[in-house]
């Protein structure tokens, strides 16, 4: 009986691993879709590398750092490599999943955090700088924050609630994205005199990417229940879906009211906004809560995209608005809506947001400063003009098509 329930929950978690995995394809397609074709191989390369770096870094250090520490702590080093327990495959390890499932699910999450940065710094960062950044950030920063909350460190001790990672995953990625952009500066041609547009080269791939992300999110949030509990998991799926849905409503109406246009890139960012926004509280929100949280996420993402652009912060894919802004909003929302709503919880959430934010931002700064010094962050002006593909990869993404390069 125990064995059967163990098998079922483990099965669900394995399904979720597979779903979270395919989110990487989603990120890759979204990012290339919203950038120019002359940089496509470069972005794909970064996205592939990030999966590998994320998984390996997590294997060699991250999992140990994040999950083997003492309760309530701040930092923990768990040794190198995977420590495979004797009961790795039995319910004695955990009544709901094996050691292997546990590790792989968490490793896929780690890789996700790194993926978020990739789109924001696209079209101008040096490949080597990005690879080093990802490696260091996933090895040194993410597992620390992860330990604080999911590894039963101090944040979990004070009652911080972040179900599937609005803060622990999305804002961790989002902060790094923001710092990265600030260090790099905008792409050439984006803010000469006036704000101009650099349109993404393939709206179909961008849209596909977002639908694949939504698809994967069923595993991301659904798996974060950490069991196959029918009531809990299926409710999480509904809540997640409804928030994504109302995220679109928010983004659609706010972008329509502001610009009188049906901007599909806003709609797809609205989906992601709703998904990120509900990720912190998908387990404790009701139907109406989800609809409201999603709606506000959708509005926020549009306002943030416009606002950030006004500040001449050049984020080609909207990573900061989606992952940082909506990540923070979702974390806050746990104190405002749903089962745990209350001033005390709100305060705890704010503590979590700030401590994670400061740690990540500082960490990202230190890494970027070091990289700027040792290898440089930005490609040359000539490379940026001609495209990173031909310069860093000696190839073109679409050699058979005649391009309107710009």
């Amino acid at each position: 009986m125990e064995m059967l329930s163990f098998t079922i929950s483990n099965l669900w978690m394995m399904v979720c691993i597979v779903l979270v995995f395919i989110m990487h394809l989603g990120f890759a397609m979204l990012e290339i879709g919203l950038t120019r074709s002359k940089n496509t191989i470069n972005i794909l390369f970064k996205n592939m590398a990030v999966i590998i770096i994320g998984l390996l870094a997590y294997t060699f250090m991250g999992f140990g750092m994040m999950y083997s520490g003492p309760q309530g702590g701040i930092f923990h080093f768990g040794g190198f490599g995977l420590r495979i327990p004797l009961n790795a495959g039995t319910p004695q390890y955990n009544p709901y999943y094996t050691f292997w499932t546990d590790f792989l699910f968490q490793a896929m999450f780690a890789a996700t955090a790194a993926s978020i940065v990739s789109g924001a710094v696209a079209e101008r960062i040096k490949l080597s700088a990005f690879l080093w950044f990802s490696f260091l950030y996933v090895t040194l920063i993410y597992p620390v924050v992860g330990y604080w909350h999911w590894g039963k460190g101090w944040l979990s001790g004070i009652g911080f609630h972040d179900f599937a990672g609005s803060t622990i995953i999305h804002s961790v990625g989002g902060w790094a994205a923001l710092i990265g952009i600030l260090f790099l500066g905008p792409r050439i041609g984006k803010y000469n005199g006036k704000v101009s547009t650099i349109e993404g080269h393939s709206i179909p791939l961008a849209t596909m990417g977002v639908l694949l992300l939504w698809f994967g999110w069923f595993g991301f949030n659904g798996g974060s229940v950490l069991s196959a509990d029918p009531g809990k998991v299926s409710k999480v799926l509904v809540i997640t879906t409804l928030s994504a849905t109302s995220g679109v409503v928010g983004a659609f109406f706010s972008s329509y009211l502001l610009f009188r246009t049906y901007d599909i890139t806003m709609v797809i960012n609205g989906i992601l906004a709703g998904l990120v926004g509900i990720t912190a509280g998908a387990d404790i929100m009701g139907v109406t809560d989800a609809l409201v949280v999603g709606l506000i996420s959708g509005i926020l993402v549009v306002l943030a995209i416009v606002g950030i652009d006004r500040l001449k912060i050049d984020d080609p894919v909207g990573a900061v608005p989606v992952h940082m802004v909506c990540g923070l909003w979702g974390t806050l929302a746990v104190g405002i809506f749903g089962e745990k709503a209350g001033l005390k919880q709100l305060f705890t959430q704010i503590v979590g947001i700030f401590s994670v934010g400061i740690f990540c931002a500082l960490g990202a700064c230190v890494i970027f400063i070091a990289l700027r010094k040792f290898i440089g962050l930005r490609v040359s002006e000539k490379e940026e003009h001609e495209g990173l593909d031909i310069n860093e990869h000696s190839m073109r993404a679409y050699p058979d098509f005649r391009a309107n390069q710009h």
Partner: protein
Amino acid sequence: MKKVEAIIRRSKFNEVKDALYAVGIDFFTYWDVTGVGNEKESHLYRGVASSRDIQRRYLSIVVSSSFEKRAIEIIMKAAGTGEIGDGKIFVSDIKEAYRIRTAQKGPDALN
């Protein structure tokens, strides 16, 4: 022989083609170009408006000098809408023409 080059709206291409066919000008070459001129295409992307140069179709028709006038008239009529952006026609000389298949020269090579 003359080369008549017309830069027209893409949306008018089929009408121009049909009109040229109707007078027996069924030999030419065309490709798509970008036009810098009075008309622009306005874009609105992620909240930022911009105006872009417009896509046009470029027709290159080599005709014997006697056909020149007719070709121009027909294009003028079929490509025109009266609104900004209807396009231009440029005429220049062609010294010689050859048909690769038969090695014919001059006006005989044109169709």
